[in-house]
Structure formats: structure tokens, C-alpha cells
């Protein structure tokens, strides 16, 4: 049972351009971390790199899972699928639509693989009855209509529906470490409340070997109100420049990044360049 996600000196390039320039971050299970930063600072890149997106090239540094007994697993050797089965999860900011694939079918597959990491292709999936019961229960918590599971994955989902579906997947997959990439954006107040509760619930659920470690990427503090971060990290120009507690998150939410930019001018300069390039490439 891994207890710690440990990232050291992480450098990541996308299409040859450096985005992360030496990120250090350690998340223990049971801890909630907030990651904040202006646009183009590398927040989503960090999430994608942890999850193993093939376009994000790790040029230096390590991502490791530390087990209870102190043994260390090298995450960089694993593809995205293996990372998921090792207990990593990311709720995407803009999850991909997979037309023609029903959410329930996809999730039954995913759940079977993640809960039984050794599962070989062609082996039985979780029994339908058992899966359906659990899915319905979780959907009930998220106030999701049961018909929703028969819709095609993210196809024609509203922003709020997508985010709920991401939370639903997290609830079903019971990850050890979850990255939530702006899961709060596009959600109304009620939905944020539900999402927050779910995160707290999953996080505190000890039935699957202890609490979850959470990295919440956000611009706002809506999600953080109920999921009080133990640590808040500010990322600027592809580096974590400052780490504090919940008060740091509040400060950034209220006052923005002016103080941070002033204190770290080089990172700020780099960040605006990155943000500009990002805007152009979009």
C-alpha cells in the first residue's frame, strides 16, 4: 500500500518546450494539497505528467510512490493505465468525449481493472449486479439520474455533467492519490457542495486501505472551503515558489498573484512568456 506520492525536481517539456522547471512536491495519503497559480504556470501540466500523458515528456526528475514498507516504485516507468492501477487518478478539466461508449460500460471495465490490477484482458469483469448496485448508490450521492450511466462518455455532457461524471469515476475507482484539475469550474454552488462532500467522503473512507491523498488544482477557494487544504502551493513559471497553509489559498483567492509576482520576478517573467505561448498555440 503506497503511502506517499513523491515528486522531485520534475522537469517536463511539451513539444520540446519546457513547462515545468523543477517541481518538488510530496503528498501523503490523508493530506489535501491545493495547487494554485496564474494561467500558463504549469498546473495542468503537472497533473498530466503525474498521470502519464504521452505528450508530456519528463526530461529530468522523479515521480515515485513510496510504500508502507519503504520500498519505492518508479511511476515514470508506468504507462497511464498502470498508473491508474497503482492508485493514481486525475479528474480532468476537459475530459474527452468517447462517442458510442456508454459510461456504465466504460466504468465497469475501468473499475474491474483498477480494483484488480493483475486482471488480464478477457478475464471476467466485476459482476454486473454488484457493479450496478454500487454505481447506483454513488450516483445517488451525486444526485445523478440513473439514465446518465447509459449516455456516451462525456458526449454532449454539459460542463457540470462532465465534472460530476469525473467525481463519480473517482468515487468508483477509489484512488490512493487524486488530482482534481479545476473540478470546481463550471459547477454551480450546489454541485460544488456535492463534489466537496464526495471528495471528503472518499478521502476519509478507510475501507480501502486508508485515506486518499488529494491535489486540488484551482483558481478559486470554493472547493477548498469544505476540503480545507493542509498545504497550499503556488506555482509560477513552472516551479512551486511558495508553500503555505489554508491562509495562503485565501490570500490568493482574495488578492490575486501580485505579491507573488513581485516576490519572484524571474518566475513571473517566465510565466507570462509561457502564458503568451499557450495563448498562441490555443
Amino acid at each position, binding site marked *: 500500500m503506497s503511502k506517499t506520492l513523491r515528486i522531485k525536481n520534475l522537469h517536463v517539456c511539451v513539444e520540446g518546450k519546457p513547462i515545468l522547471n523543477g517541481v518538488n512536491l510530496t503528498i501523503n495519503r490523508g493530506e489535501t494539497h491545493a495547487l494554485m497559480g496564474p494561467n500558463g504556470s504549469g498546473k495542468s501540466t503537472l497533473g498530466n505528467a503525474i*498521470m*502519464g*500523458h*504521452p*505528450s508530456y515528456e519528463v526530461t529530468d526528475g522523479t515521480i515515485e510512490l513510496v510504500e508502507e514498507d519503504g520500498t519505492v516504485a518508479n511511476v515514470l516507468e508506468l*504507462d*497511464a*493505465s498502470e*498508473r*491508474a*492501477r497503482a492508485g493514481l*487518478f*486525475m479528474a*480532468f478539466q476537459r*475530459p*474527452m468525449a*468517447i*462517442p*458510442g*461508449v456508454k459510461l456504465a*460500460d*466504460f*466504468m465497469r*471495465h*475501468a473499475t474491474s*481493472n*483498477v480494483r484488480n*490490477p493483475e486482471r488480464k*484482458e478477457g478475464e471476467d469483469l466485476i459482476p454486473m449486479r454488484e457493479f450496478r448496485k454500487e454505481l447506483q448508490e454513488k450516483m445517488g450521492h451525486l444526485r445523478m439520474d440513473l439514465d446518465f450511466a447509459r449516455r*456516451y*462518455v462525456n458526449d454532449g455532457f454539459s460542463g457540470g455533467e462532465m465534472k460530476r461524471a469525473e467525481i463519480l*469515476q473517482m468515487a468508483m*475507482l477509489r484512488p490512493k492519490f487524486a488530482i482534481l484539475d479545476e473540478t470546481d469550474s463550471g459547477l454551480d454552488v450546489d454541485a460544488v457542495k456535492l463534489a466537496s462532500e464526495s471528495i471528503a467522503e472518499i478521502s476519509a473512507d478507510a475501507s480501502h486501505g486508508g485515506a486518499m491523498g488529494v491535489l486540488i488544482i484551482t483558481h478559486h477557494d470554493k472547493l477548498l472551503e469544505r476540503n480545507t487544504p493542509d498545504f497550499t502551493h503556488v506555482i509560477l513559471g513552472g516551479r512551486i515558489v511558495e508553500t503555505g497553509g489554508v491562509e495562503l489559498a485565501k490570500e490568493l483567492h482574495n488578492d490575486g498573484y501580485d505579491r507573488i509576482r513581485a516576490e519572484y520576478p524571474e518566475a513571473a517573467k517566465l510565466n507570462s512568456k509561457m502564458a503568451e505561448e499557450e495563448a498562441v498555440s490555443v
Partner: protein
Amino acid sequence: MATDTIPTPADLERPVDDVPHEINKYNFITQTKDIFKAKKGLSREVVAQISEMKSEPAWMRDFRLRSLEIFESKPMPKWGGDIAIDFEDVYYYLKPTEGQSKSWDDVPQEIKDTYDKLGIVEAEQKRLVAGVKAQFESEVVYGSLQEEVAKMGVIFTDTDTAVREHPELLREYFGKIIPPEDNKFAALNSAVWSGGSFIYVPPGVHIEFPLQAYFRINAESMGQFERTLIIVDEGASVHYVEGCTAPMYTTESLHSAVVEVIVKKNGRARYTTIQNWANNIYNLVTKRAVAYQDSLMEWVDGNLGSHLTMKYPAVYMMEPGARGEILSIAFSSTGQHQDAGAKVVHCAPNTSSRIVSKSISKNGGRSSYRGLCKVEKGATGVKSNVVCDALILDPQSRSDTYPYIEVEEQDVQIEHEASVSRIGEEQLFYLMSRGLTEAEASSMIVSGFIEPLVKELPMEYAVEMNRLIELQMEGSVG
């Protein structure tokens, strides 16, 4: 039993349930042994011999001979795929053979593997081994089916039998929708055709369950030039399904079928086929329907395998209110070119059509969509919607779209949407980030892509289709 055979076609398109038909059976075997002579190549002699062995009336023999002349006078198509067929190197009729039916040992390994996995090899072996008994079993099935539909006046038989038993219907419709002059391969089929399905549904009769044909090529029932004719009379309906579950293999290289469908006023016909050919086959098929007033013709067409497929199911809407719908899927892999598509021809006002065409290209496979939407002069108020989507799974593969739109009227509404997508790296990553392996993820994306077709299939075919696609995705085929 015959074996190393040829291509008479009988069963290519023959209902599975038809295999055991006693009379056919005896005729077939007797003729195989006594009359057929093996000979490659195409000539008047060969064509006349086919007609003679089938005890055909003079009009059919003359039709064949005339078709042969047309075939010889027509150039090869200059578009589509590269066709490299030596017509002199093809068997067009049965030759006598000794011994047993072809065994699975003669089947190309990749096809055998497919059907092995599908459980068909076993089923097939049982049938061959069980011989008479199996035939008896099948005959019961066929008999009951025939009895049930026969009560309603429906005719469902193989086309050879139809020529003998329903000459009036045949003479009226055969070769009228797709005359031999239509194209070189229609002419070829018209000259040497054998087997196929013949269906007639009388006015007002609705057949609730699909009529199913099961294609297989084996010793005594092998075919490459089947000929299917379906007539749906006024206010009647039928769903005809050709199965993909049979081992369609052949040592020959050419499959050239002709399918004609007539849907009269207020009638409905749906023709569903899923075909999985060996990778050395040229699959050059002409399929066309005519739809009369307020009728509906639907083609659901799936193509896997073959070296080259050129197939464009067509609906000609002849009278006001006629509708045509075509849903097609092509899957091409290494060494394969699927040149598939659809044609809708609006010959009357207030007719409407919809084409959904999907292709998947993988491991260097090539898919082309070639479609025609034509609105004739006077056909006002026409609506047509064409959607073609191509999915390309790797950089070695290729997809092209050749839409032809010919409109001779003002008051029409034509929509054409085409999209080509690479299997999204983002989609793959998304699914993999949830613990699916890369293979599972691609397979799921592809299944989703073809879902619009699969959901139109009867359950058992939908299951087969999904399994075939999974096998293709595993790379265990071809």
C-alpha cells in the same frame, strides 16, 4: 461430396437453413459428379454449361450469353481500387471432385483463427462430421421457417430454384434493376451467376422476424457470383439479414455479387449484411434498390477483410415520398483497400435519403468513402443528409473521401458532413488514465465508433460484429 471447388456459388448467399434442402442437395451432388467439368476461364461454352447444369430455361441462358458479350466489351473501371484479376485464371463453374469436403486445413490460417475463436470451426466441423443428421436438423429449421412464411404467401428460396419455380416473377424483375450493361462486374455476374437468395413478399404482408441467410463456402455449396433478388410488394415489409458468422473463405480470388431490391408503394425493406472476407479476395459487388411511393429502403452494410472491396449500395427513389437510408461501415487493415460508400438517386419529388458511412483504417489499411447524391430534374422538395466519418488508427493508414453531388433542381436540401479523425491520443489517454490498457482503450473507441451500425443489427449479429472488431483490433486476424 465435392471439394476443391469452385465457385459455384450456390451457397454463398444461400440461407443456412437451405443447405439441407433435399432436392437441392441431390441435384447438386449428382450434377457435381456427373456433369461439371473443371475448367478455368470464361467462354460461351462455360456459360452455356452453367446454364445447362442448372436446367435453365432458354431465356436465362440467352441472358447469360448476352451478358458475357457485354462483359467482354466493357473496359475495367478506371476508378476505385487497383484491380488485378486475370479472368482466365478464375473458375466459373464447378468441377467434379472426389472425396470429402474441404477441410479447415485448407482454410487460410488467419480466417481459421478468427472462426476458431468465434466457435464456428467447431460448429462447422460438427455439421460436416454429422453429415446427414446435421442436415436433417437444419432441414427442420428451414422447413418450419418456410412453412411459416409460406403460409403468408412469402417466397424465400435460392435464386436457382426461383428460376425454375417462379419464372413469371423472375422474368419480370431479374436484371431489371441492375442490367448487365450497368458495369463490367454486373455483366460478369449476369453471365455466370449462381445461388443467392430470392424473396417475394406479397402485398400487405409483414414478416416480423428477419429472414436470414448464412453465407458459407464449402464443398458442395461454394459460391462467388451469387445473385439476390428481393421483391417487396405494396404495403409489405421484410428484413433480410446475411450473416457474418459463416466461414467465407475461398481459394479463388473474386467475389462479384449482384443484389436487386424492389420496394413497392408503402413497402419497407431492410437488407443487413456483415461480411468478413479472406484477405486475398476482390469483393466487387453491385447492390441497388428501387423504392416507390412512400416506401422505405434501408441498407445496413458492414465490410471487413478482402484485398479490395468496391461496394456502393444504392437506392433509387422513383416516386414521391420514397425514402432511402444507408448505413455502412468498413474496416481495413494491412494490404486492404475498402472503397465503399453509398448512392442515393432522387428521381421524384419529396423523396428523402440519409447516408451514414464510417470507416476504420489500421496497420496501413486504406479506406475510401465514395458516395453519390443525385437529384434529378423535377425532383423538388428533396432532402438528403450524408455523414461520413473516418477513423484512422495509425500514421501508416489512409482514408479518402470522394463525395459526388449532382443536383438538377433548386428546391432541395442537401447536407454533407465529413470528418476524419485519428484515434485520439487524448481519447486513449483518457481511457488509459482510468486503468484500461491501450488495447482495451482502442478497442473501446472503435466499438463506440461503429456503435451506430451495431445497434441496428439483430442481437446475435451485433455480438458477432463486436467480436470480429475485437479480433481485428487484437491484430489476431490477417
